[in-house]
């Protein structure tokens, strides 16, 4: 009995980490729920360290999940929901930054490195093959002929 009471006391005391998602949060409509969950992984839990609201157990993440689900249930498109959240919390909320003048370089780098790197490789090939394919100069040809003639004779 004492153990039971102690257990209860402890259980009530712990307000520690909840689940990343609580039972009963989900929307009844499975397709809507899937749509909402796809969005969760693209939204940041702003008070967490690099977690999406799908993974986080913070109260803010839960509030955001509920908000997103409400919007999805109301029929908003994913982009409209993101617009709404960006208007409210800034670009920081998006884990996948939108392409704009601020993030152009971020999105361009992978392609740029490939293109510039590929270009450098091709250029290097051509230059080195040009060196390798160099034909004999007139003088060298004459000496080669002379050697051949010597051998034959």
């Amino acid at each position: 009995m004492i153990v039971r009471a102690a257990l209860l006391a402890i259980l009530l005391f712990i307000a520690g980490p909840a689940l990343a998602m609580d039972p009963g949060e989900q929307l009844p409509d499975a397709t809507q729920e899937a749509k909402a969950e796809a969005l969760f992984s693209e939204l940041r839990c702003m008070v967490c360290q690099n977690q999406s609201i799908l993974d986080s157990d913070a109260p803010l993440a839960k509030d955001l999940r509920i908000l997103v689900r409400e919007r999805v249930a109301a029929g908003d498109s994913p982009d409209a929901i993101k617009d709404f959240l960006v208007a409210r919390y800034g670009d920081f909320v998006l884990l996948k930054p939108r392409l704009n003048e601020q993030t152009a370089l971020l999105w361009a780098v992978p392609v740029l490195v490939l293109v510039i790197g590929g270009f450098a490789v091709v250029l290097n090939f051509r230059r080195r093959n040009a060196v390798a394919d160099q034909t004999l100069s007139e003088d060298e040809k004459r000496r080669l002929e002379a050697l051949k003639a010597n051998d034959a004779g």
Partner: protein
Amino acid sequence: MIAEAGHFALVLALALALIQSVVPLWGARRNDNVLMSTADGTAIGQLAFVSLAFGALTAAYVSSDFSVVNVVDNSHSAKPLIYKISGVWGNHEGSMLLWVLILVLVGAAVSLFGGNLPRTLKANVLAVQAWIATAFLLFLLIASNPFARVDPAPFEGKDLNPLLQDPGLAIHPPLLYVGYVGFSVAFSFAVAALIEGRIDAAWARWVRPWTLTAWLFLTLGIAMGSYWAYYELGWGGFWFWDPVENASLMPWLAGTALLHSALVMEKREALKVWTVLLAILTFSLSLLGTFLVRSGVLTSVHAFAVDPMRGLFILIILAVFVGGSLALFALRARDLKQGGLFAPVSREGALVLNNLLLTAATATVLVGTLYPLALEALNGNKISVGAPYFNATFGPLAVALLCAVPFGPLLAWKRGDLVWAVQRLWIAAGLAALAAAAAAFMAGQGSVLAAPVAGLAIFVIVGSFAELVERTALFRVPLGNSLRRASGLPRSAWGGALAHAGLGVALLGIVAATAWSEEHIDMVGKGKPIEIAGRSLTLDDIFLREAPNHQDVVARFAVRKDGLVQTMMEPAKRTFRTRQMTTTEAALATFGFSQLYVSLGEVAPDGSAVAVRAQWKPLVLLIWLGPVLMAFGGMLSLTDRRYRVGAPRPARRAAVAVPAE
């Protein structure tokens, strides 16, 4: 007293490092054997003194000496012994001491095993190694002294961060650091080669085993960290594209590129300049990783240090080493002569493609990690760069690289035959297509991309062995002959095939565990089972469990299949007494390569029910088995004959006696 001895040992190590930074270099210039050989003594001496310092700090932890600030902040007398020991590096100062210990260990190893190196090269390498040691010993002594005392000493310590009280801490950082720091050897060889202005195939043969060793430890370290996060953080993710993870991924990617380009250099004397640059970049990225994690620029679980002085100090080290080595490279790279020519379709060409894609991948991770910091510093705007960005950019690069992996080993050096290679791979491609079709059929739902990616994984696994099949003439000659041929193959051929197959294995695990996982979240009381993956999960009991420094609320579940109990699972919520912090201790049950992952949420006020998140992760263990295979392949290559017998000494160009006239 012991702490002071440790502190003083660090000072002595610094003195030796300073000597080793200058004297061997001078000796190499004057070709003076006596001066050059001082490096051997100082390298061993550094190892001895830093070991002494490390031993002193460990002693302070084990005996719970609370007059040492570091012990007070990170330990507790009731902490189990293993965490007292691993707690030595579970904090900023201690982990930097471990970093330096591994650095001097590697330096001593170069001195001991480098007997077959040309004398001047060895002296220069050890000197460069000592520059790095000097910088980091200074950093320890000036900005993060692990031996600082506190007076009066408190009676009890503040305990270690609960997330770090895990066997993972004992293994993960040492593995990772051997990887990070191991790349310093490649760096020192590169800088030494630039100082000498001379580089040849033998250089690559010396650098490759060191790089391979560092690489395989880093591979294991990253995998270990990933598995640790998977079971400890409690929601079953295994890679988060967290800046700290990226910090270890960047040197891994660059190091992988370096391994491959050094191969070209060793075999064909081509790609010299590029290999030297990669060696510099790889270690620079290791230093950058150290800076990112240690400076507290990024705030995450790993950043124990939130001290701008430290950040600035490491930034200066970073700038000096990266800037200095790149400047040296710019000055001297032209002196390095280019070697063998090759056609675009050839083994060399394939390895160039490998390097191009790996470089682009490294750049992507780098820019994704630093962009938010740079943007905020520039105009104060905060953006997030998270998993969806990396999936969209790094993902395609990785897929392109993996598609090419089986082709590389099938192409001949100098000039390869792509059609011939494709013909060798049709079985692998057929199996891959079959696997993709089966996956699409069985899974039904899930991402559209999952089935083809699973097919790609099979293609990589099977295709990796195509070269071995070819070289053993399997199925074309009697099996006995094939086996004899197989045992005659160099171990590096087996190592390469296994490492490549490991990539496919890891990819298969990633795809299966993300696309085909099952999840149930529910409030569970006794007698209301959760049905998951053909099994039922029933709550058996909720109870309390005591440990010396924490208290667990445990929910015991029975896992049944067809009515029979297969196993019991005990997920818990753990409260640490000293820090009053609660962590989620997930329970994992393994079935083959798949796992059932159960974590707890809120407990009902009357203690009769608990919120449960049960996840079925098919083939999830392959994610970490793949890297283990890769590391094993690396180890196999390392024991290859050409490294065991030692590289042949290049014939010294005899000084041509010029007759006096």
